[in-house]
């Protein structure tokens, strides 16, 4: 399992799906671990009843069906698929509405889904949420999982684990194909007052985290690969030499 995760850290992120399916076939005994530990590019399905698309992930899967956050129904239909409690479902509906607005303001498009479920181990709720933006040849997939601890004296503990998977490809005659892809994952723990409600706290955490991740990808990660290219072939030297040719 450790070796499998090692491989996932080295394989090109744009081949995540292939790598994962290869590992799944080699290590069927670890399939549930693999599926829960490796984030893969998000897929979507359309909820015909609402005419809206929703994101498929481990958090809304039961057997081979996925629960739509809009109609609360499984696609394809599943007779006794697990559903959140009424109270949790109410919060889920609300969260989906709010995150749709949030997504629209930051992504100007894309799809978002929020799923809630109760965790067996802890007395609390958990939120899985994915979101994606599309560009001709680019995709931004974000998955945020928040574990909310039990409420104590008006505060609760929140643990956010976020993954952003990004791939950009440009292809043109003069410069060939240029493809950058990456995935990073971070965690954030906070103890917050529940006065303004869970959604408010979770929302702020996710917003802060997304901005951080975006910044790291832009500044650090892409910057580092650019730095590498310039170490391989320093540009200043070349510019100086240009008049010769």
């Amino acid at each position, binding site marked *: 399992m450790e070796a499998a995760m090692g491989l996932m850290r080295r*394989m090109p*992120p744009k081949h995540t799906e292939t790598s994962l399916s290869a590992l799944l076939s080699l290590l069927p005994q670890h399939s549930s671990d693999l599926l829960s530990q490796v984030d893969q590019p998000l897929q979507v399905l359309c909820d015909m009843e609402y005419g809206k698309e929703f994101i498929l992930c481990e958090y809304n899967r039961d057997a081979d069906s996925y629960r739509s956050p809009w109609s609360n129904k499984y696609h394809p239909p599943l007779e006794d698929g697990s559903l959140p409690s009424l109270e949790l479902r109410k919060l889920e509906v609300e969260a989906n509405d709010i995150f749709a607005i*949030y997504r629209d*303001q930051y992504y100007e498009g894309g799809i978002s889904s929020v799923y809630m479920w109760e965790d067996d181990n802890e007395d609390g709720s958990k939120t899985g949420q994915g979101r994606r933006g599309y560009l001709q040849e680019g995709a931004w997939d974000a998955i945020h999982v928040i574990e909310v601890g039990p409420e104590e004296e008006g505060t609760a503990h929140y643990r956010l684990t976020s993954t952003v998977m990004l791939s950009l490809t440009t292809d043109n005659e003069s410069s060939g194909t*240029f493809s950058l892809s990456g995935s990073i994952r971070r965690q954030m723990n906070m103890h917050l007052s529940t006065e303004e409600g869970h959604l408010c706290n979770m929302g702020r955490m996710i*917003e802060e985290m997304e901005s951080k991740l975006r910044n790291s990808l832009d500044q650090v990660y892409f910057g580092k690969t650019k730095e590498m290219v310039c170490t*391989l072939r320093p540009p200043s030297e070349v510019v100086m030499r240009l008049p010769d040719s």
Partner: protein
Amino acid sequence: MADEEEAELSEKQKKEIAKWFLLNSPPGEIQFVAKDVKAVINDDVLYEEAASEAFPLYNKSHLISIEMPGRIGDVIVTSYGELAKNEFIDPRTAQVAVVCTEVRPALDEELPSAYVEEFRCAMDAEILKYVGEAYPKGVCSVYCGNGKDVEGPGFDFELVVVISAARHSPQNFCNGSWRSVWSIEFKDEIQMLELKGKLQVGAHYFEEGNVQLDAKHECKDTTIFQSSEDSAIAISNIIRQHETEYLTSLEASYSNLPDTTFKDLRRKLPVTRTLFPWQNTLQFSLTRDITKELGIGK
């Protein structure tokens, strides 16, 4: 239980998967990938088979350079210099490296004719100069691709320029490689040289994440057939020009990222240019919900 399920994959499939992982290793990381693949495959015989097929392919496609014993120089592992399995010629020193154990002098029939060698040697000198200037850690070699037995004017032949620069700094979580292969056809009849270049640049940054650059570019050019020295100078200038332009276009792609590509995917701030008003939206959304429910009449 695991054994039963694993039996569903044939040995051949497992080997193919192992090879796929090995061949997709980022620059300079195949040893690390190999360690993990070995553990995942959990079958040493099968792993050895996969590795023995994948390593030579990886080394050739990454244009790995290997120091020859006796400090006589480096030999590039490329299909252009491959004489037999694990045997690679270094035209500059006319030595054949038997990877990775020994070197032997090249046999006469492994070397180009004196006529072709004159062009090759002149080209090698120019490219060596260029690579020395442009790539801090670059290695290069010029091979005869076709027509090594051409004895004099009147026939076509082909030279291949291979340039490889790699930088591995795992302590900085970063590896990268620049590879270019230029084939130059000497067309005797039309007295022209036709160049085709394939450039490939890769980089992997993996501190708390996995980000990879994979860029490829192909280009073409022509120049007139001149004396060996003049041809060599003309060609190294063309290569320099194209590679410089390519680097500039790579930099341009990078500098376009923040403003265009990235912004189209996710903005730094919402369209409103202020952080998302979580508290207000909560109320807004609740009111909207109620109106909606009333409106639909559910």
